[in-house]
């Protein structure tokens, strides 16, 4: 018995417009580019919807209808869902229809596609909670398997997942940590007793996600038939083939003219032609197979670049500095209790902003340039830091306004009656705060 566990990740960031220093203090909209450039978020959503989301969802629906055994998983960033709702509601509806089939699982994620786990666990938890709530609202399901931004993973993340009730987590199946072992089994994360980790078969996943349209590749053009034999070859040596990739592989990273849609259309049939091959969702995979060993990842592992670490986001000074600065705002921005400011702050945490600032050389650098809407990493950094400065300024103003608002009534008191009233109020507040139930500070 061999099962295939496909999972597609759907994400769109809120790209920061060309926000200039002159805008600081005057413009609190960072993501509303209206130009013809690739910084126009609405334009991008509309473009990718036509190239990828609409045709792929139609095709996936068709596959679910034709093959009762066909199953897969999706993960969404909240920023993508919000933008679908605003700019392409029909896309959101078609996703809801897929999930309604009961054969499409949704994974847990951070709402803002952020690296918060590595910078602030409390903020990470708030974003996961917000994501869970949103998924439940839109799809009526509660995710049980967790995947973190860019498939980033570390032992302590698995421990967190176990402590928070998840049954499994996803990670890259990387030789550095696997050694001679195969990614085609289920493993137990180090220091965990109950949860299991599903490992991406990066060779077979990237054959589709990265190499499919590459005419210089030895296996080009890849037919569904050939690919199915590659998977069938694992009968006897593996239990699950985990194919994890960006959803946008279909039609956006690999354009329609590469034949990617025809490939996807024929693949499930080809795979199911072998009587011992089936599809499983991540939950089923985790429930059906026992772990065969321990997966020990002490340092951050991701699915990006040839390094498989965080250097695509934290590799240089401007990336590290801007990441540290954005997380340093946490205490102040939460203190404002201003939903708009907090939302802007979180949108600025999306990992893509830092990915655009990457200056790594070699082939990876080319990949970064392809996915960046900015002309250079420095342009990306300048736009980001200018927006950041504006946000910082607004947070400071909000806090100053709060303190003056709190100070004023006490300072203005000259009339004795008022003074008594205030004393009474203060005493009453103190009494209430002694009763834990009314003490709202404990919630922060």
């Amino acid at each position, binding site marked *: 018995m061999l099962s295939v566990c496909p999972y597609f990740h759907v994400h769109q960031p809120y790209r920061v417009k060309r926000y200039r*220093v002159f805008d600081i203090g005057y413009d609190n909209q960072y993501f509303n580019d209206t130009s013809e450039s690739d910084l126009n978020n609405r334009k991008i959503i509309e473009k990718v919807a036509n190239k990828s989301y609409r045709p792929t969802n139609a095709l996936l629906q068709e596959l679910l209808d034709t093959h009762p055994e066909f199953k897969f998983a999706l993960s969404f960033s909240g920023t993508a869902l919000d933008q679908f709702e605003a700019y392409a509601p029909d896309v959101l509806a078609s996703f809801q229809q897929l999930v309604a089939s009961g054969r499409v699982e949704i994974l847990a994620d951070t709402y803002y596609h952020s690296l918060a786990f590595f910078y602030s666990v409390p903020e990470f938890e708030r974003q996961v909670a917000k994501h869970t709530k949103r998924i439940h609202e839109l799809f009526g399901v509660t995710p049980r398997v967790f995947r973190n931004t860019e498939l980033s993973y570390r032992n302590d993340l698995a421990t967190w997942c176990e402590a928070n009730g998840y049954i499994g987590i996803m990670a890259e199946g990387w030789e550095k940590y696997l050694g001679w072992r195969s990614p085609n089994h289920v493993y137990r994360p180090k220091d965990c007793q109950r949860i299991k980790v599903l490992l991406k078969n990066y060779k077979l996943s990237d054959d589709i996600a990265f190499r499919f349209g590459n005419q210089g590749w030895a296996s080009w053009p890849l037919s569904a038939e050939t690919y199915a034999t590659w998977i069938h070859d694992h009968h006897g040596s593996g239990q699950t083939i985990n194919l994890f990739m960006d959803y946008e592989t279909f039609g956006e990273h690999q354009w329609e003219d590469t034949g990617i849609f025809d490939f996807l259309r024929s693949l499930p049939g080809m795979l199911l032609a072998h009587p011992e091959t089936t599809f499983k969702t991540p939950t089923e995979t985790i429930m059906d197979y026992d772990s065969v060993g321990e997966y020990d990842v002490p340092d951050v592992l991701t699915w990006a670049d040839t390094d498989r670490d965080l250097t695509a986001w934290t590799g240089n000074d401007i990336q590290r500095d801007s990441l540290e600065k954005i997380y340093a705002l946490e205490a102040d921005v939460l203190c404002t209790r201003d939903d708009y400011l907090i939302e802007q702050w979180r949108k600025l945490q999306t990992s893509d902003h830092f990915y655009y600032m990457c*200056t790594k050389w070699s082939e990876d650098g080319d990949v970064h340039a392809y996915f960046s809407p900015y002309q250079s990493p420095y342009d990306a950094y*300048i736009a980001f*830091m200018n927006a950041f*400065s504006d946000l910082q300024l607004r947070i400071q103003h909000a806090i100053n306004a709060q303190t003056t608002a709190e100070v004023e009534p006490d300072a203005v008191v000259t009339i004795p009656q008022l003074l008594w009233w205030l004393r009474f109020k203060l005493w009453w507040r103190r009494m209430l705060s002694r009763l834990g139930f009314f003490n709202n500070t404990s919630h922060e």
Partner: protein
Amino acid sequence: MLHGMMSSVRIVLYPPFIMRVLTFGWEYPPSRNGGLGVACHGLTRELVATGTDVLFVLPKQQRTQGNNTFIFADAELPDSVVVKEISSALRPYGQANSVVQSIIGYDEQGNPRYVARTIMEEVHRFAHQASLLAARESFDVIHAHDWTSYVAGVAAKRVSGKPLILHVHATSYDQAAGDNVDPAIFALEREAFAAADQVVVVSNLTKHIIVTKHGVTAEKVTVVHNGCDIYDPPRHRPVLSAYKKAGYKIVLYHGRISIQKGVDYFIAAAKRVLEYESKVLFVVSGWGDMQSQIICQVGEAGLSDKVLFAGALWEEERDTMYQSVDLVVMPSVSEPFGLVPLEALQHGTPSLISKQSGVSEVLTHALKVDFWDIDEMANQIIATLRYDALPRQIATAGKLEIKQLSWRQAAAKIYQLYRSLLQYVT
């Protein structure tokens, strides 16, 4: 057996082929003119280091550095007129009818007697001397740098029949910063390009100009980007340190003050920056025909206390300035290459350069802006001054990058070009 084999082999030793290049230039370090001399020196030094014999011809006697052979057309040719330079007006950056004054002798009271010639006359005199020289010397290839030497190169080719390479460091279109070119220089360029076997340009930008404007076929044009020195220069005691202590950031313009260089855009951006950041000092280092206009612009904008004119800085003074400032701006309207950002990086200082420069084709680690976009220029200057990680990142990554842009690599491409021109010559 072995002995028998050995004796049956006849070993013929040919003398190793050493290529000899007759090179014409107009200036050479430490002459204080500009990038042309620096580029000639960088290329010549590396060619000589890799075993090419370079005979470098300069129009007049000057102090030179390096271990190749120099010939001064004014001094060594028996029938040349002895010209002593009295001003720095004889430059390849002028107009064709710019007047050059030379001392031809002294009167009875000991006062110098001048003769005035146009640059065009000087160019043709240089060519005449070149033809005499070409008849006398033996060499394999002719290489002429910049427009003032083109005619000399063509003359040497006519006399010797050797292949000619013209090296374009700038065109009349760059100097005019537009279509208002000097017709005499343009005509000279066209004719010389037509007569050359190969034309070397310093960027794709320049290639585009000479293909579209001068009608040179693209196959005849080779792009050899300039390089830079890659050793770590000595550190000097910083200047303007009182300002730095007072919390000022310093932004430098270094180069000729002429329309081609876009200094007026630099001043306009400075004004915009100072509306947002008061503690910034702008330094203009250089000379040029637009100097008075720029000074007036500064006065008009009320920036006299924020824009300093440092005059032309050379060698140690220039290096000190590069090391003391926070950002170097090269706002060129039209820049065939532009060595300034590479020099700045050598000293660990980041640059903001115009996209209309050849160097932006090869340098990734720099801020880039359209020269006319004053707001964006100001935006990027302010960002660099405010967000410390930005200049740090550009300088660190840029310093690694310029190691790939050495003069040796540029010279290697030139050498390959020489070889390709000589492949059918026996």
